[in-house]
C-alpha cells in the first residue's frame, strides 16, 4: 500500500490580533491507500484545524501536505476547490444538505461543479443513493428524511465523485444510536470496498470502529488505542 496522504511538520497558527494561537504544532501523519483511520481528540485539541487542512479547506502555516501525490500546501483557493471537488468526499456532522433540493440534486451537487453533463450526473447520483440504500428516497427533500437517512444522503454525496479520500467530521455527532450504527456500518462497507476513510470524532466508541486510531492533544499527534488511558 502506498501513502495516500502525507503530512510532514504541519503547523497552523491563528493570529487573533492580540495573541497567536498555535493550533497544530508540527503534525506528521501518513495514511495508506485503503486505510480507515480515526482521529480522536477532545475539543480544543486542534482536531478541527487538522480536519480543515486534511480537507484542503485551509492551508498549513508551515510544513507540507501531499494528497494523492499532489502537494497542496501552497495552492490558491481555486486550485484547492478543484482538489476538494475531485479528490475528497466530505461527510459533516450537520449533514449540510441544501433544504430546497431533493436528495438526488444534493448528491448531484459536486458533479455540477465538476462539469459533468446532466444525464450522466443523474445516473451517477442515483447509483450513489442506491449504494447507501436510499434508492426509494431520491425525490425526497432533506426535511422529509430522518437524521440517519440525511447522513446517508451526504455519504452518497461524498461518494458520487469517486474521491480518493472520504473525510468524515463527527459524522455521528447528531445521530441516535441506531442511526449511528447504520452509518458506521456504511463506513465499514465502504472500507471493505477499498475506500480510504479518515474519520474525526471525540467519541471512543466511534473511534474503535476504525482500523487505526490517531490521538491529537494540544496540536500534536500520537498513535494509540481508541480507549483513553
Amino acid at each position, binding site marked *: 500500500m502506498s501513502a495516500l496522504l502525507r503530512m510532514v511538520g504541519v503547523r497552523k497558527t491563528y493570529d487573533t490580533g492580540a495573541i497567536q494561537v498555535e493550533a497544530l504544532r508540527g503534525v506528521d501523519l501518513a495514511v495508506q491507500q485503503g486505510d480507515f483511520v480515526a482521529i480522536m481528540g477532545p475539543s480544543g485539541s486542534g482536531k478541527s484545524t487538522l480536519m*480543515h487542512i486534511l*480537507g484542503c*479547506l*485551509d492551508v498549513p502555516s508551515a510544513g507540507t501536505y501531499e494528497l494523492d501525490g499532489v502537494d497542496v500546501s501552497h495552492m490558491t*483557493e*481555486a486550485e484547492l*476547490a*478543484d482538489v*476538494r*471537488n*475531485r479528490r475528497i468526499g*466530505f461527510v*459533516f456532522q450537520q449533514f*449540510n444538505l*441544501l433544504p*430546497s*433540493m431533493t436528495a438526488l440534486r444534493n448528491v448531484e*451537487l*459536486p458533479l*455540477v*461543479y*465538476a*462539469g459533468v453533463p446532466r444525464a450522466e450526473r443523474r445516473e451517477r447520483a442515483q447509483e450513489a443513493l442506491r449504494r447507501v440504500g436510499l434508492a426509494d428516497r431520491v425525490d425526497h427533500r432533506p426535511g422529509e428524511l430522518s437524521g440517519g437517512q440525511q447522513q446517508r444522503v451526504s455519504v452518497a*454525496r461524498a461518494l458520487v465523485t469517486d474521491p480518493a479520500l472520504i473525510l468524515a467530521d463527527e459524522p455521528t455527532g447528531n445521530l441516535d444510536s441506531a442511526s449511528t450504527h447504520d452509518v458506521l456500518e456504511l463506513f465499514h462497507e465502504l472500507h471493505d470496498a477499498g475506500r480510504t476513510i479518515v474519520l474525526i470524532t471525540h467519541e471512543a466508541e466511534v473511534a474503535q470502529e476504525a482500523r487505526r486510531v490517531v490521538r491529537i492533544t494540544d496540536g500534536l499527534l500520537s498513535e494509540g488505542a481508541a480507549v483513553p488511558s
Partner: protein
Amino acid sequence: MSWSETFRTAVEALLGRRMRSLLTMLGILIGIAAVMLTVGLGEGARQQITAEINKLGSNLLIVMPGSLSNASLRSSSSVMTLTLDDADLIADPAVAPDVAGVAPVMGTRVSVQYGTDDWSSQATGTTTAWPEVRARNLIDGRFFTEVEQASAAQVVVLGPTTAGNLFSDTPAVGQEVVISGQTFLVVGVLESVGANSMTNDDDLVVLPITTVAQRLVPPSSARSLQAIYVAARDDAAISSAHQQITRAITVNHARTTADQDFSIMTFQALLSAMDTMTAVLTTLLAGLAAISLVVGGIGVMNIMLVSVTERVREIGLRKALGATPALIRRQFLVEAGILGLLGGALGVALGVLGAAILTPLLDLQVTVSLPATLLALTVSLGIGIGAGTYPAARAANLPPIDALRSE
C-alpha cells in the same frame, strides 16, 4: 459548472424567496416605468409640436418689421418698415429665385356683424397667394380673385371659428356681413387648422389687401405691412431664400446688415428652439425619475447582502464541494442581474400600460420606442449587476471554513 446550471441555481434561489424577490424588483420596476413614461411624454410632446409646426408650413418664412436685435423697435407696435414694395421685390424671381410664393399681410382688429350678432376678429388683408403660402384650404365657397383684389372688392373669406360664431344655422357663403360699418359679401369659409398656443388661425377674416388698405386702416398706415409670408420652393431652399430676401430688403431699405429694420422668422428655427426646450424638460424629468432607479439599485444591493449573510452555510458547503470563488461570484451576480432585468422588464410593461392609459387621458401621444425599451432593459440589467458586485465579492471571498462553521 455551466452557465445554464448557474442560471438554474440562481432562479431556484430567487424562487425560494419569492416575496422578497418581488419586493426587491419593485424598486427597479417603478424606476424604469417612471423614466420610460417621462421620456415617452417628452417624446410625445416633441412629436406633437413638430407636427403642429409642420402643419403651419415647414417651408414658411415670415418677414416682420423691426429688428430682432433692437428691443425698442421690436416691442413697438407701430413699426412700419415693411411695405408692399418689399413684398413685390421678393416676389420677383430675378431677385429671389428660391421664393415660390409671397403673401403680404396687412392686419387690424375689426368687429364683424351679421344681423344682431357681433364678433370681434382679426382682419387679414392679403393677396391671392395667401392660401398657397399658408397652406390653407376652404371648406366652402372660394377665395377672392385677382380681379376682386385689383378692384378692392368688398368680399371676405371667414375663418371657421368666425363663421361658426356668426352663422350658427345658415351657410355663411352668400351672406353679407358688416365690418367697420361697411357691407362685405362672404365668398368662402376656411378649413380649420386647429387652434394652438401660439396663434388662433381659425378666428380671422381674410380680405383683399387693397380693400383693407383703402377701407379698414387709416391712410397713414395704408402701405405698411404687418408681415410678409413667404413660401420657399421647398424645405431645403429655406436658408437660400432667407439670404435672398435679407439681401433684397436690406438694399431696398438702404440699410446695412448691422442695422436691419426687419427680421425673418422661420419655423425651422422655432422648431429647433422647441426641440431644445422639450429635450431639456424631458432630461430634467427623466433625471428625477432616475433617482428612483438608484434607490432601486440600492435595494437590490441590500437584499443581496442579506442573502449572502443568510446563506453563509450554503456558500461554505458549495465551496467545500468544489465551487471556486469565481463560480460563487458568478452565481450571486446572475441572481442580482436577474432581479434587475426582471424588474426592468416588468417596469417596461408598466410603462407601456401607463402610456396606453395616459395617451387618451392627456390627449398626447405618449411614445414608448423600441430603442428606449432596449435601453431600459440594459440599464436595469446593469443596475442589478452593479448592485450585486459588492455582495457577490463578499460571498466569493468567504473562507470556506468560516462559512461552514457558522451555525
